[in-house]
């Protein structure tokens, strides 16, 4: 069963995480670049918002976010599994 909203939200997380990562690589060797710093901060903010939304609806992305009422870390599919699995 595919969930379009879930896929869209995950794509959003992947997109902003990738932007943040690209900025981080650039910043490693250009740590004072104001434009890259700004883009990095913006991407992190967008990513964190999307992660909070995703985790609230579909479960944790890291083990640290897993333990509320139950240990949801071992619930649901792992990222390398096909949707049909």
């Amino acid at each position, binding site marked *: 069963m595919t969930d379009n909203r879930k896929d869209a939200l995950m794509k959003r997380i992947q997109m902003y995480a990738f932007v943040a990562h690209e900025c981080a690589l650039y910043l490693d060797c250009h740590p004072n670049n104001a434009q890259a710093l700004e883009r990095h901060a913006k991407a992190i903010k967008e990513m964190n918002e999307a992660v909070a939304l995703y985790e609230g609806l579909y479960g944790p992305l890291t*083990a640290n976010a897993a333990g509320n009422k139950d240990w949801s*870390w*071992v*619930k*649901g599919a*792992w*990222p*390398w599994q096909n949707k049909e699995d």
Partner: protein
Amino acid sequence: MWSYEKKLQYPVNIKNPNPKLAKLIITQYGGPDGELGAAMRYLSQRYTMPYNEAIGILTDIGTEELAHMEMICAIVHQLTKGLTEQEIIDQGFAPYFVDHTAGLYPVAASGVPWSANTFQSTGDPIADLSEDLAAEQKARKTYDNILRFTDDRDVADPIRFLREREIVHFQRFGDALRIVQDNLDYKNFYAYNPSFDKR
């Protein structure tokens, strides 16, 4: 995917260099029962592990092994800092030094480079988890042997932490094996391979 945290799992602060000891401890980086092999073993096996709890254990222990590899590298790095050429010769570090200077390269204590031949990923959950149990004991054994030659408390302290983790991992792999067996035919655990055979 992974992200890096700028911290060690347990602190490593060694005051006195000791390349002779570094040559032994580096085996837990690139040796047959080392942390690199452990991480690769568990992180390779998880794709065909059939049950969520066991996948979780392989993922989380495999990830912890990467952190242990970093601790071992930190120990070796601190033990080989600021050496004189005389110390390098006197302490038997010259054969490593001539190839790697003080760089970190995954080798066994014997000097044999790290190899994927040191582990298996069988696609059979009982075989994989049984190997993992043995692997934790073999790593515990190596730490016990390292401690025989370690009289520096700065080194022994993090090595003891790593040794203890092997015992905890052994317990958790035991739990995982039990969960796998509980999912199988209790009259014959080997009746079929749950990660391959259709049922």
